């Protein structure tokens, strides 16, 4: 709750100070604000900081529910945004005029994300998604005079709004059949007549799944993400790949968990093929990929596939294995590694520069530390112990095996094998290929810090996953 308020205030402030040309203030202001918000959310979670909560609570008629799920994911989102936004200078320094707008819009995006992970009414879900999407349509196109950026923006916009059309239809059908928009109502209706669900309702669930699948870029609704990731400015790509994906998957999980859990039986049958398809397409397509941003996009798709396992094998009662915990951990692991990877890309190739893998050639000689950092992140993404990525995978696989979803587990294993190849190719480029000259290496203290934090957390989270796992127990 405080998250929403502080974020909106922060956004407005940045906007205004942008208007009044206090550009130098913007970055510190934003970061400080985010830190503050983060602390506040955490405090609120632990019940220490309740001021804003009390302020709003009376007006919150079951629109948002701030359970530990919401807090955990909001915290995660805020933290990632903090990391990504610390890289902003790469974006800002190339169009200085819109610095204020840039920050404010991103902050609003974060707000949308927070709404998405804490909604308990489909209205809020819809609004949250739209805030997120609309802001991102803009940010994707924020480099106005370059073709890729434009193209990315338009594609994202058209496909996104088309998808939200379906999402809406789904919501409408659900509403029509269940007569409710709030999760408790829906779930009570569905669990009441889970056996004889009117087909319209099934159709609605289907449409909603489709809409969410689009947001998490699950096949066959994934096509937007590679193009948009490639076209968008790298910082924004990083933001989309981490914050947005996390928010989307969390919202998806919250939705399924909160409303449709009763009929898990059949949408499992529907989702597991999607999950398999997603990870397979993502991995296989990435194998022959020369562009690092696209590569990460495809890897993002495959990871979405893994994450879907957490939803397919929906478990919430087991003390030590619940989907929320698994997905929380996995998104954390995935996002940390990805942010670091993008940060390295920013350092190596700049915000707009050529993002082909060859940009990393000979990085080990140019900047060994950077190379090692990226290697660790790639290993984590590939799921090599003892890094965070491995434990996340273990957690999800364990869920699947626990539920006896053998086919899913088999495909997951197979895919995590395939996946290794392209991560390692990048690594090999860094260490074995000779560097070709003329590549800008615009390092910055911020990026160094971000990379360091990500790498360290990746290792620590891998060695001691206990904490994260326990959060949602």
């Amino acid at each position, binding site marked *: 709750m405080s998250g929403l308020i502080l974020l909106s205030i922060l956004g407005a402030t940045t906007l205004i100070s942008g208007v009044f040309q206090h550009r130098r203030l913007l970055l510190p202001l934003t970061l400080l604000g985010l830190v503050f918000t983060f602390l506040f959310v955490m405090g609120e979670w632990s019940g220490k900081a309740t001021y804003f909560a009390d302020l709003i609570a009376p007006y919150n008629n079951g629109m948002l529910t701030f359970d530990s799920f919401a807090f955990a994911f909001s915290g995660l989102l805020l933290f990632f945004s903090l990391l990504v936004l610390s890289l902003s200078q790469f974006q800002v320094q190339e169009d200085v005029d819109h610095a204020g707008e840039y920050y404010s819009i991103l902050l609003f995006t974060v707000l949308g994300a927070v709404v998405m992970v804490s909604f308990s009414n489909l209205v809020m879900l819809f609004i949250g998604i739209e805030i997120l999407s609309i*802001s991102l349509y803009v*940010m994707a196109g924020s480099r106005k005079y370059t073709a890729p950026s434009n193209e990315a923006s338009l594609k994202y916009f058209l496909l996104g709004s088309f998808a939200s059309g379906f999402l809406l239809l789904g919501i409408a059908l659900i509403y029509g059949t269940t007569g409710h928009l709030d999760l408790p109502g829906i779930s009570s209706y569905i669990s009441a007549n889970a056996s004889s669900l009117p087909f319209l309702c099934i159709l609605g669930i289907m449409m909603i799944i489709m809409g969410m699948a689009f947001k998490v870029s699950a096949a066959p609704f994934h096509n937007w993400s590679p193009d948009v990731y490639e076209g968008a400015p790298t910082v924004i790509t990083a933001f989309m790949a981490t914050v947005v994906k996390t928010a989307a998957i969390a919202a998806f999980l919250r939705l399924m968990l909160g409303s449709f859990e009763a009929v898990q039986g059949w949408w499992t049958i529907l989702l597991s093929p999607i999950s398999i398809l997603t990870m397979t397409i993502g991995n296989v397509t990435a194998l022959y990929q020369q562009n690092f941003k696209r590569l990460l996009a495809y890897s993002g798709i495959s990871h979405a596939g893994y994450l879907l396992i957490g939803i397919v094998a929906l478990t919430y009662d087991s003390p030590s294995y619940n989907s929320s915990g698994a997905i929380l951990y996995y998104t954390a692991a995935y996002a940390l590694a990805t942010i670091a990877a993008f940060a390295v890309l920013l350092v190596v190739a700049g915000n707009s520069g050529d993002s082909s893998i060859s940009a990393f050639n000979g990085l080990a000689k140019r900047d060994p530390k950077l190379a090692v950092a990226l290697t660790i992140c790639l290993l984590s993404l590939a799921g090599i112990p003892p890094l965070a990525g491995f434990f996340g995978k273990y957690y999800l696989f364990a869920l699947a095996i626990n539920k006896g979803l053998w086919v899913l587990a088999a495909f997951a294993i197979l895919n995590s094998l395939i996946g290794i190849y392209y991560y390692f190719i990048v690594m090999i480029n860094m260490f074995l290929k000779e560097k070709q000259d003329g590549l800008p290496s615009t390092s910055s203290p911020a990026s160094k810090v971000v990379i360091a934090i990500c790498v360290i957390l990746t290792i620590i989270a891998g060695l001691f996953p206990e904490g994260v796992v326990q959060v949602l127990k």
Partner: protein
Amino acid sequence: MSLNQIAFLGLAAMSLLGAIMVVTTKKPLYSILYLIFTFFCIAAHFVILNAQFLAVVQVIVYAGAIMVLFLFVVMLLNLNKESEYRKPALLKVAAAMSGGMLLLLTVAGVVKSGAGNVETAEAALYTQTTIGYVSNLGLSLFKEYLIPFEVVSILFLSAMVGAVVLGRKD
């Protein structure tokens, strides 16, 4: 066959017609006009459904603001000169087929499941529904729906800023 049914069917026919024209006309300008027409039909439907407030909003926001915006852009970019880009026949067939299929499947679904709990609806409608009235809507809007209402303002803000950022030539 009561009066309302005739009205409904007429409006339905018109709105469908409008929609189809929007989709099929060659020139953007025309499709805009057809779209406005469709929107008006839908507004009328709202009236029949006793949702006056929405009907008005529909007219103001959609038929008014949004469509004007469209027109404005079309004029600004002078898009009308370039007629709709030629489409391969295959595309048309494919589009029609998939659209039709979607329709078929969904409608079949409705038929299959009888209806979305109609009987309750009818029961409700013996006593006239007044929820569509501004007063009622307003109450619930500012009571239960306060937060979405506020949040959506953020949406507006960011959309506005975004539009400015993108649209402004600098």
